[in-house]
């Protein structure tokens, strides 16, 4: 079953044609990786799934993107609800200047959850899910800025997961992290698969190979190839894909 379906998507920043005629289906509860050289449009495409690009003035989208069969750019769509259901983790950790606890509780609070016991329980679950609980359980009231970069990124994952999204978008979530933090985050992604649909942008082929079921290769705003991760990395159909994964350009 497909969770996300993109049909004939074209996207423009002003007059710049950033995404060219992309169609791709993302199956439910699987992990899909987007790879491709810098500037090819991976982030742009990812940010269409939670309508983050709406914030950038002068952009234009044609084609259709649906999640659970609903056109997310349709008139009746409530963008706040869409974003609650489609979580996002950014390239740089961006915790709020609040306590560790309040960072994770934020999504619940802004969505109207008032029950304190429920919030406390959900915060704990989310932090455990992000493998951060043991490191922070004694300092939940301290500032999130007191955490290391790797911890902050896991906090952001916990923050995103606390509202139980059915899709998690991750834009190079480990690019600013050390190998140990990276390994922890990759483990988290593997934990999520089977329960949550994960779309991850990465520059690391190894990472894509380790965590994803399917991989899409983008080049100059086009989606060149999309298929099972194993196939993409061992026997791609396109020469461009072959060149990229073997490091001949990118």
């Amino acid at each position, binding site marked *: 079953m497909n969770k996300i379906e993109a049909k004939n998507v074209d996207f423009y920043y002003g007059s710049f044609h950033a995404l060219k005629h992309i169609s791709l289906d993302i199956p439910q509860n699987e992990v899909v990786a987007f790879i491709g050289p810098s500037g090819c449009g991976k982030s742009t495409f990812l940010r269409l799934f939670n309508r983050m690009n709406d*914030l950038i003035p002068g952009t234009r989208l044609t084609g259709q993107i649906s999640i659970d069969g609903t056109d997310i750019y349709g008139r009746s769509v409530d963008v706040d609800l869409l974003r609650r259901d489609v979580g996002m983790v950014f390239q740089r950790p*961006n915790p709020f*200047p609040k306590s560790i606890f309040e960072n994770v509780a934020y999504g619940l609070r802004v*969505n109207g959850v008032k029950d304190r016991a429920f919030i406390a329980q959900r915060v704990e679950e989310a932090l455990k899910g992000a493998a951060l609980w043991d490191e922070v359980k004694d300092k939940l009231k301290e500032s999130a800025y007191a955490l290391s970069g790797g911890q902050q990124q896991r906090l952001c994952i916990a*923050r995103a997961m606390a509202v139980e999204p059915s899709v998690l978008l991750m834009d190079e979530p480990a690019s600013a992290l050390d190998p140990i933090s990276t390994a922890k985050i990759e483990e988290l992604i593997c934990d999520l698969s089977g329960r949550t649909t994960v779309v991850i942008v990465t520059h690391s082929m190894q990472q894509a190979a380790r965590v994803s079921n399917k991989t899409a290769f983008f080049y100059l705003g086009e989606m060149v190839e999309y298929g099972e991760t194993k196939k993409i990395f061992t026997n791609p159909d396109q020469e461009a894909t072959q060149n990229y994964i073997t490091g001949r350009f990118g």
Partner: protein
Amino acid sequence: MSLPIDSSYRRRKLWLQQAVFALFRVLSYAVVAVLFLILGFILFHGAGVIDWTFLTEAPTDGMTSGGIWPAIVGTFWLMVGSALFAFPVGLISGIYMSEYAPDGRLVAFIRTMTNNLAGIPSIVFGLFGMAFFVNYLSFGDSILAGSLTLGLLALPVVIRTTEDAFRDIAPSYREGSLALGATKAQTIWRVLLPMAMPRVITGLILSLGRVSGETAPILFTCAAYFLPKLPESMFDQCMALPYHLYVVATSGTDIEAQMPIAYGTAFVLIVIVLAMNLLANAVRKHFEKKLKSK
């Protein structure tokens, strides 16, 4: 092979640099020295008259003796009043300009006008205050009219600092909040405002400090020459330090005897303004610490 450089070039270059630096140093020291001289002069002449009576009693004997308590109280209420006006209005306008107004000519125009507003002589504000608050809205000469006029004077700076404070927040905080399903208003209220607050408050206090010394805006809208009793409501007139300073220094029965009082008043005014600036710093530091550790 070596480059064709005159051997004295480097020496001349260094010499010139030293000379220019020396000039800059002398100039900046001179400016600071003059500032301290002014401050020292007033403090020297003013400190002598400061005592408990001076600070807590009303002027007596045709303002040739007694204290300045009613003027201190008046200035205090004017500050409170203008803060109550300039803070919410400035904050809301600043947030609107930075977060809601569509980027374009209109906003650019409003921004330019706001900046121009800050450059209008304060006596013009006084005139406007008289025409609008005192007469048109029939507030009369009152603390209310004076506060609103002073508040208008402080407004451009508060709007500007609010707008800048919000604009300088990295987009990643907005995106992080919106990505969790927060609305724009929730994002502003719960994430951006706490981050912008230190700068907004600092801007407010600094502009109030400036405004507290203004004479012209309260001249036609509020200030009384001499009032033996303290104001009882915001529709009363009041005395105020800057106007009192002007009065005792320029008019009255015995200017000679009044001069020490003028210096004493100036002393108190300066202390208030300096205290406001220190307060602004303390508030900013406090908020910043809270943001980091909360």
